[in-house]
């Protein structure tokens, strides 16, 4: 990886100024010519639009949760570059397994916003029939995984999928998202170890957003970096400024190319910051100082990419206003449509546990359907 020539943006948090953090964007959106992946302007604009769209959806959903119209949301404010640029750097034939903070990547893959909102409401049009809480989406058609809440379980699965793709001789790569907290899970270690031993085409996309609910990353590990954990498993490790969409894109693309060519897995530490709470159920004021949040806001990933586009006269205020307003309107329409829909039928609770419904579920289904109804609304 190149050493960045462009100095780190001023006021950058110390963590990001550390040696060995790959970066392209410097002050005022200037791209380092030595490291710039020189992407087509159209692609950079697309990534930027997706980042803004993700931010707007996050903000609106948080508001709706406060109003009591949705039960829960787990957002990605501040982490849009590492999520969207990672997704953009992979091919549509590659797989992405989510943690639970990556709805932006799912929408990037073409998943309809209306379906995302229906899933959030768990209504009759939710593809998973209201079986999961909000932000636990599935998108196999989009080569996107299925969110579960236990931390880290998707990592060994990502290795297994990549291993299967390799066995079948397909040049597909599996990217798997997880947070810094998940690096302490058993699955992280076994996944890294298996990926290293069997040289599976797996990209470990570690969003080091510095907070695992209330635990800062310094208390998650005694290691100086998360990327260096790759050394123990013979897995290539790299640190990248995860608030720099261009740097993220380049690092992920190069790792994907290497994996595709048989070069094995890479652990990518995407250095970013969870600007919001862990979820709408969390209030981070209880455990962190606002000053830290403000320092990271100064290197906001959207702000930095916008400055870059504006420098090239490829973005302006009017386009920004229209994008924000269009997204707000689109989401508003989706919410209104979802709110009016019925819950899934009671029968559906007993379906899809097995391929074919066994006798005991058939029996319980009949009991439930003909039995008394819950008083609380669905």
């Amino acid at each position, binding site marked *: 990886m190149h050493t960045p020539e462009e100095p780190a943006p001023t006021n950058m948090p110390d963590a990001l100024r550390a040696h060995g953090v790959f970066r392209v964007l410097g002050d005022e959106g200037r791209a380092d010519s030595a490291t710039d992946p020189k992407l087509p302007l159209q692609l950079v604009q697309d990534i930027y639009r997706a980042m803004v769209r993700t931010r707007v959806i996050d903000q609106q959903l948080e508001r709706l949760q406060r109003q009591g119209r949705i039960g829960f949301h787990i957002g990605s404010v501040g982490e849009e570059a590492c999520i969207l640029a990672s997704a953009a750097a992979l091919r549509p034939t590659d797989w992405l397994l989510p943690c639970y903070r990556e709805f932006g990547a799912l929408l990037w893959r073409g998943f309809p916003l209306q379906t995302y909102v229906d899933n959030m409401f768990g209504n009759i049009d939710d593809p998973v029939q209201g079986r999961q809480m909000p932000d636990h989406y599935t998108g196999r058609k989009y080569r996107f995984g299925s969110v579960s809440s236990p931390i880290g379980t998707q990592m060994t699965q990502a290795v*297994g999928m990549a291993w*299967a793709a390799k066995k079948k001789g397909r040049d597909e790569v599996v990217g798997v998202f997880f947070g810094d907290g998940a690096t302490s899970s058993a699955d992280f270690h076994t996944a890294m170890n298996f990926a290293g031993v069997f040289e599976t085409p797996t990209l470990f996309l570690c969003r080091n957003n510095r907070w695992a609910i209330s635990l800062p990353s310094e208390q998650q590990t005694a290691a100086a970096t998360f990327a260096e954990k790759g050394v123990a498993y013979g897995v290539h490790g790299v640190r990248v400024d995860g608030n720099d969409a261009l740097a993220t894109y380049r690092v992920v693309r190069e790792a994907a190319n290497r994996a595709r060519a048989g070069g094995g897995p890479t652990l990518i530490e995407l250095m970013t910051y969870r600007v919001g709470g862990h979820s709408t159920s969390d209030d981070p004021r209880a455990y962190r100082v606002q000053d830290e949040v403000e320092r990271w806001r100064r290197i906001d990933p959207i702000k930095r990419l916008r400055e870059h586009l504006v420098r090239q006269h490829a973005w302006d205020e009017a386009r920004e206003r229209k994008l924000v307003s269009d997204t707000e309107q689109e989401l508003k329409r989706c919410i209104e449509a979802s709110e009016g829909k019925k819950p899934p039928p009671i029968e559906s609770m007993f379906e899809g546990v097995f391929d074919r419904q066994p006798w*005991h579920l058939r029996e319980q289904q009949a009991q439930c359907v003909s039995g008394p109804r819950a008083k609380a609304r669905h």
Partner: protein
Amino acid sequence: MTEMNLVQAINGTLRSEMQANPDVIVLGEDVGKVGGVFRVTQGLIDEFGADRVIDTPLAEGGIIGTAIGMALYGMRPVPEIQFADFIFPAFDQIVSEAAKFRYRSGGEYTVPMTIRAPVGGGIRGGHYHSQSPEALFIHTAGLKVVCPSNPYDARGLLRSAIRDNDPVLFFEPKRVYRAVKMDVPEDDYAIPLGEAKVVTEGKDVTVIAWGAMLFEAMAAAQEASAQGVQAEVIDLRTLWPVDIDTITESVEKTGRVVIVHEAPKACGFGAELLSLITERSFLSLEAPPLRVTGWDTPFPYTLENEYLPLQHRITPAILDTARY
């Protein structure tokens, strides 16, 4: 027909399923060159190579997690857990992931995976080479649990398990591995999951057992018949979903029931079976149902024959319930 033991029967089925379907692969600790600590996978690596018979690092969570990933991708992995006692590092992957994928993804992702693991005591293995954890998996919605007692059933059930579209735990009674030999057809017969078998007919008492304890139950039934009590012995074969019709039919005939299992009594599968029986056949019961099980202690080493529900404890239970 070929005479074979349980190890040979399972080995042969793995071989023929791997020949029939390139998506079937075996992975686990020491399953390759050494053929597994019980030699169940012996020779498979020579025929199918190290790409399909994979010696993995020593991490059960990794074996099952990666096997789930392969299954999500469309393969039919058959991971081996060296002893069922070592399955717990993979418990999260089995319970939170494999069992729930179909349901939570609205059927978009499925996990057609068969986890093989030796279970049960009787080999002087102490706590960690003797347990029978079936109830933990039966309790988890989305899993099927199979435990054959003999080579013929093992062959037909393993074939159905591998071809099944849901995750199956295939528990192999290690005490039976080499203890029982029988003539087994070499063709590709399958025994459907969810069908129990009445192995001894009788009119007085229903005895329900599976795995290695089936033979203890049969011996006890024989002993009881010398005293004029005709016990009907049912081999469940598939524990979940259980064949409730065969059970209720028998219990409604005999009115008396004894359930035998190696696992501890509290919340053992026997507890669920008795609840199902009383819910369905309460008015047919002539005596309190009995359970002959492992005790609610960790599995002991020296005193394992006092822990296990062997013939010496089953026979009195059959006679007691018959004479209640």
